[in-house]
């Protein structure tokens, strides 16, 4: 759903590194090199970021859409 706070296997803090990782990979950097520069050495921690999908962004879309409709409706009734 959302990036886990720690590595499942060893317990290293990885949650705070996700946003930088995702941004840099998106700009075309090599994922392995980004992980190296973030100081994530073990493969248990590396897979945490490498295999993560932020599904919460997809879920939130429903709420954003509902909010937009609510706004449109109230605007319509004000007229």
């Amino acid at each position, binding site marked *: 759903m*959302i990036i886990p706070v*720690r590595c499942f296997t060893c317990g290293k803090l990885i949650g*705070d590194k996700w*946003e930088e990782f995702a941004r840099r990979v998106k700009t075309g950097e090599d994922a392995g090199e980004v992980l190296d520069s973030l100081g994530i050495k073990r493969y248990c921690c590396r897979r945490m970021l490498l295999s993560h999908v932020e599904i919460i962004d997809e879920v939130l879309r429903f*709420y*954003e859409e509902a*909010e937009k409709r609510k706004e449109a409706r109230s605007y319509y009734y004000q007229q």
Partner: protein
Amino acid sequence: MEKDGNTMRLLIKGVDTPFINALRRNVLAEVPCMAIDEVVIIENSSVLHDEIIAHRLGLIPLKTDLDSYNLPEECSCKSEFGCNLCRVTLTLDKEAKDGTITVYSGELISENPNIVPVSDAIPIVKLAKGQKLRLEAYARLGRGKDHAKWQPVSTCTYKYLPRINIDAESCDACGKCVEICPRKVLAKKGDKIEVRDLLACSLCQDCADVCPKEPPAIKIGWEENAFIFGLESTGALPPERIMIEAVKILKKQLKEFASQIEVQKA
């Protein structure tokens, strides 16, 4: 031996395996550190359940002050709820007013400015417009044996100090051992093979297996009473402090053990 931020490597000599393993287990299970233990959710309209948010909060490592806080079971207050000496309150009050926001660990407001999350950039939850999250969290000291969130380290390991013997007479410096070593321990220098980085050796014996001489000209062994002790802190405590605490706890345990033996004799 070496220290780099939260990680530390020590070379410990003159001890045996049971001792160093006791030390390792004390680091993992007995050295206390701070973590959020109880959460009162006042309002939560986010997409994550209360329990998930409480769990995520619990896993956030907090900078720990071992000198001014007590373990709740050893505290003079004897109360289940805790007092100022064994509990820290953190609060969070967030509402997404315009557009989707991410709530970070840095937005937790602690009553003690020394007990704060190790990193301010850990996402706790994402809120869409109109969603709210209000909660009060209580952090306390605890031990790794009760929950992994109270473990002050992510990894704590030891290994034997390697010993590499190269028989200068039978070795013809063919270089096969240099090539196969996954840790690049060996190097070829002139017509001799030299040990470049002894501590990196993982005792895999690949070099001895690949050596064409019979018996192999290279021999991998380890010192009996020397260890490389590695430790990676979560940031809750500095690594050297974790080590000191582990030794202190081991001393206390041994004293208690000795006193029990004396009682049996009498």
